[in-house]
């Protein structure tokens, strides 16, 4: 068991960043995640899909302990997530998260949003943090908005700021929870482009999304979840062209023919 956990599924020499073993989670009596086993390699891009309410958000929120799991183990970059606050902080430092509703801090400028964590968590000097922030804002193509407040930006711009904000912490893993589903159609592409760039740069990414085009372009693996279980996982073309499970077929037919 231990043996297999420390090796990847097909690529034994690559390093494993996230290990999830026999993990269960309940909300009160409700068994929301059931026996989740998942290893993520460094640099791997994983897309998680599944019907609404299947536990996708809960799963990736367990990885930075926004939600607590009750059984099994989650090890991120060698640190096991337990009640020990130190470990939790250690993991959160290394794991960036992008939310569906951006969750930018509306009372801070775009630049301050980006420098806050580097300054207060990583204890970087302000000048250095600002230089890094400008670099990442440039990379998400909005350096000219640095001194505006989030409320003055469009949704797509806000989400790109949110991505830049996470990147400023130089995370080893990025989690995305439906980053484009609150956006108007014409803004989805600008955000996906940024994410594709990021993927090309070798970032380890776990991404809950229904953008199947994105999954086909960047994903190394697509995971399908339903009712709290991982039903099926496969390489993207296998997953889309040759789904094994009936529920996967049903789901794919629903989202591809809408």
């Amino acid at each position, binding site marked *: 068991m231990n043996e297999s956990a420390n090796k990847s599924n097909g690529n034994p020499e690559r390093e494993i960043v996230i290990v999830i073993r026999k993990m269960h989670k309940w909300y009160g009596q409700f068994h929301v995640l059931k026996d989740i086993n998942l290893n993520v390699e460094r640099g791997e891009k994983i897309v998680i899909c599944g019907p609404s309410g299947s536990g996708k958000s809960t799963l990736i929120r367990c990885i930075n302990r926004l939600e607590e799991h009750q059984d099994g183990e989650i090890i991120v970059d060698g640190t096991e997530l337990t009640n020990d606050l130190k470990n939790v*902080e250690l993991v*959160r430092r290394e794991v960036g998260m992008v*939310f569906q*509703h951006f*969750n930018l801090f509306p009372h801070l400028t775009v630049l301050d949003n980006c420098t806050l*964590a580097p300054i*207060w*968590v990583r204890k970087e000097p302000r000048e250095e943090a600002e230089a890094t922030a400008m670099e990442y804002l440039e990379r998400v193509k909005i350096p000219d908005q640095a001194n505006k*407040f989030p*409320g003055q930006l469009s949704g797509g711009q806000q989400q790109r700021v949110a991505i830049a904000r996470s990147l400023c912490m130089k995370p080893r893993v990025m989690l995305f929870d439906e980053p484009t589903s609150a956006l108007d159609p014409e803004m989805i592409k600008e955000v996906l482009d940024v994410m594709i760039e990021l993927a090309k740069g070798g970032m380890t990414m776990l991404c809950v999304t229904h953008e199947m085009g994105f999954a086909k372009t960047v994903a190394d693996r697509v995971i399908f979840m339903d009712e709290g279980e991982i039903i099926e996982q496969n390489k993207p073309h296998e997953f889309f062209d040759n789904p094994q499970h009936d529920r996967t077929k049903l789901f794919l037919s629903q989202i591809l023919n809408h």
Partner: protein
Amino acid sequence: MEQSAYKPGEHPNLPPPSNTVGPIAWVRANLISSPTNIVLTVLSIWFLYEIIPATLEWAFMDAAFTGESRDECRAKAGGACWAFIGERFNLFTYGFYPADERWRIDLAFVLLCVALLPVLWDRCPFRKYGLYFACAFPFISGWLLLGGFGLMPVDTDEFGGFMLTLVIGVTGITFSLPIGIILALGRQSDMPIVRVFSIWFIEFFRGVPLITLLFVASTMLNYFLPTGTTFDLLLRVLIMVTLFASAYMAEVIRGGLQALPRGQYEAADSMGLKYWTSMRLIILPQALKISIPGIVNTFIGLYKDTTLVIIIGLLDPLGVGRSSLADTKWTGLSNEMYLFVAIFFFISCFGMSRYSLYLEKKLATGYER
């Protein structure tokens, strides 16, 4: 179909039609827009016509500004007798503070204004040093008012009038905000002891009338304290008023904390910020901003509640006024006295209210969608 004057894609930006801007448009939109509106406008004008001239007549045209007693005033004019206020002005302002030492109160008041400037105005020159001074102000003013260390000691029994109102009001306002914040955070804490303590503290102080607390402060505490300890009455009152206001403050701020979307807490957590850092930099700035109207409401309530100390024998402006009315020279001039005190309170409270509006405007960032 009617033809547009411009080709598609070439329509310029035009000014709005002239009948929608300017004073006439304003009158039309605001005073006579509907039959109900017309009736209300007419009624208001009639009401103002009845009230304003009579008031002006009483307060200024037909008022006596000098005189040694009520009878002298009445002999001169039938309206207000402001000579009464004039003669008692020092009593209203300083209470029974020794006359030779009153400069200390004046100085403390000036320093209060100096200390408030950097706190209230974020672009004040030398703000950083101003804030240091503001932190030192309570100690400096305490020394000025109480004496000792080279100044003649003055007993708190001799405090009174507007100066007493300011002492209680400013102390209560200064301390109730931080205590309220701590209680509000405590009430949301994961630690059961902290949470239960906060809840009971808030419920107790909010559930008991302030007058009761003041009575407890003035009499009952003596039973609990070891005999022989002297524990200044004013200090007890300050503590009670502060705790009372803190309980309200805590609930106001809790409202603000709950109004924040959960995503703000999650974003802060997901970046690895520690609890106090995320509270200080992310949660509280937003929660306090949302709570400004409620916070200022509590401040104003506290400020006006200072008049309750009359019950336990402290002479606030109303107390001074009542005792002055008891003077046979000035009996029957309660209109003047209450109006004068009301104006003092109104100016202070209106000032706070306007400042809160200014602050809300200033803190508004972008438009929420």
